[in-house]
């Protein structure tokens, strides 16, 4: 339907705001068409949208503003009531500012505005000059009106409280559900990874058998070759440089193949976790003692922070040491020119935290995301299995591991392990 005017056409159409997930039925839109020198410009005012926004604004006003506006509205209604006289019933309109104040500013303000509403009505009634059969009747009427307002305020406030409680419960349940989904996803991913790695272990054992046999004879034959060259050179221990270099290079290559196989074999070797109470601090202190001189040779300064209040954990000490050793090895390789390695323990609720931190090369965000993936490596000669093994061991201990890293500044690995339950 359009109403024509000289240059503006005004109309009402029906529509549904696109931002609602389900149609709310037929809603009125007001449309303007501006005709300006052969140009037609159409404006659509979505009434529901505007009303919705207005309601949101009104309900989110600060308390003092609500009080002032509600009282002003009451005064306006009172004035209209006085002007229009007794015959024109307006009592129900008082509920508008009262309900609004109650919803936007709470029950206390609602009751206060209800009192003000009843008083306003009483004043307007008094000013109208109507003579009641009994002088107490207007007082009684005002009291009844106040009782009605109070009932509405109480019901509204009870409804609002119930709504908040419901929202709170839904929020809490949603958060719990999200946490559960996250945990299940993590467990699922860990299971898939464990299965993949078990396959790696089985294959590695087979391949190792096939490769290490020839490697065994190559190693022994290299030793024999070394001696043969020595004999040819006159047996005085002065090997020709070229012969020495060749044999040394071959030995280094054999060692490299051996290292790669060792990385794969870690998964095949991983025995079932044998847990027993472990004093993490004492255990780490003892074991790290053996690494100190090796680290110092690489110009890596080792610092430790052990939480003295950390209770024991239930773990397979040897496997746990394998994880620390892997992390330390990575840190050392990330600091080829030396640096600082910090190993610490903390208690966080019912969990023990073991943190290995370095100020080495660090990693990019993309690398951090993939760091525990099997076969992913940032090293030139890595197999990408070290951290996958670490994660596997930690998962088997019912824990998890996190990595934080800043490219060029260093990396931090934190292992979360459950503390022993008190019996």
């Amino acid at each position, binding site marked *: 339907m359009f109403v024509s005017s000289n240059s503006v056409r005004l109309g009402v159409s029906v529509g549904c705001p696109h931002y609602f997930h389900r149609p709310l039925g037929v809603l009125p839109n007001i449309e303007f068409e501006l005709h300006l020198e052969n140009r037609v410009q159409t404006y659509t005012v979505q009434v529901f949208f505007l009303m919705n926004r207005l309601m949101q604004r009104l309900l989110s006003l600060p308390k003092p503003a609500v009080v002032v506006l509600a009282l002003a509205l009451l005064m306006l209604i009172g004035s209209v009531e006085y002007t229009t006289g007794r015959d024109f019933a307006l009592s129900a309109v008082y509920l508008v500012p009262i309900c609004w104040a109650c919803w936007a500013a709470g029950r206390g303000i609602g009751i206060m505005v209800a009192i003000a509403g009843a008083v306003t009505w009483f004043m307007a009634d008094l000013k109208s000059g109507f003579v009641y059969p009994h002088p107490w009747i207007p007082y009684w009427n005002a009291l009844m009106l106040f009782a009605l307002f109070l009932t509405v305020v109480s019901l509204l406030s009870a409804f609002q409280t119930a709504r908040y409680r419901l929202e709170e419960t839904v929020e809490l349940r949603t958060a719990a559900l999200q946490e559960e989904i996250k945990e299940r996803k993590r467990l699922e991913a860990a299971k898939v990874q464990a299965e993949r790695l078990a396959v790696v272990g089985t294959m590695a054992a087979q391949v190792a*058998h096939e490769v290490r046999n020839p490697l065994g004879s190559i190693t022994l034959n290299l030793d*024999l070759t070394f001696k043969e060259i020595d004999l040819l050179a006159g047996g005085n221990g002065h090997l020709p440089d070229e012969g020495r270099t060749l044999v040394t290079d071959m030995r280094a290559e054999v060692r490299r193949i051996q290292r790669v196989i060792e990385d794969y074999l870690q998964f095949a070797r991983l025995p079932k976790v044998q847990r027993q109470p472990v004093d993490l601090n004492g255990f780490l202190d003892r074991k790290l003692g053996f690494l100190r001189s090796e680290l110092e040779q690489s110009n890596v300064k080792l610092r430790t922070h052990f939480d003295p209040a950390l209770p024991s954990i239930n773990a397979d000490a040897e496997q746990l040491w394998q994880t620390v050793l892997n992390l330390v090895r990575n840190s050392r390789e990330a600091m080829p020119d030396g640096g600082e390695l910090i190993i610490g323990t903390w208690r966080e609720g019912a969990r023990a935290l073991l943190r290995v931190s370095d100020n080495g090369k660090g990693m990019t965000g993309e690398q951090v995301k993939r760091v525990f993936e099997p076969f992913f490596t940032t090293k030139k000669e890595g197999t990408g299995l070290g951290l996958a093994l670490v994660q596997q061991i930690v998962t088997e201990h019912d824990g998890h591991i996190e990595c934080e890293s800043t490219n060029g500044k260093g990396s931090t690995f934190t292992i979360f392990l459950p503390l022993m339950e008190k019996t």
Partner: protein
Amino acid sequence: MKELRDKSVLIVDDHTGMLRALDKVLSREGAVVTCADGAADAVEILTGRKKRIDLVITDLRMPFVTGITVLYAIHEIFPALPVIVLTAFGSADVKAECLRQGAAAFLEKPLDTPQLLTAIAGVFMSQQSSKGKA
């Protein structure tokens, strides 16, 4: 290596390359080496009593009869004969089983000559000390 001089060593391995390399390394140290390319061959040499054997070095994974069976058989028939297990891959469980069956040492390939000789010397030394005690 003086511990190996004139000692008779039986090597059991289905890989001829490994057999040959071990043979040469040990022969150079003065040992008298006998090679067997399988468990059956090894048992025949041992039970034939044609030769005195002082030490057995056996692989684990071999066709038909495994090294563990060889180890078990030797331990039953010749309890005093030291056996070194030299395998390409053995898990912790396999290692424990070998030692339980009486293996004198458990070594993994690849290993270089000094490692092999040190292990053999260790076996002979512990054998001598146990004889001394007896």
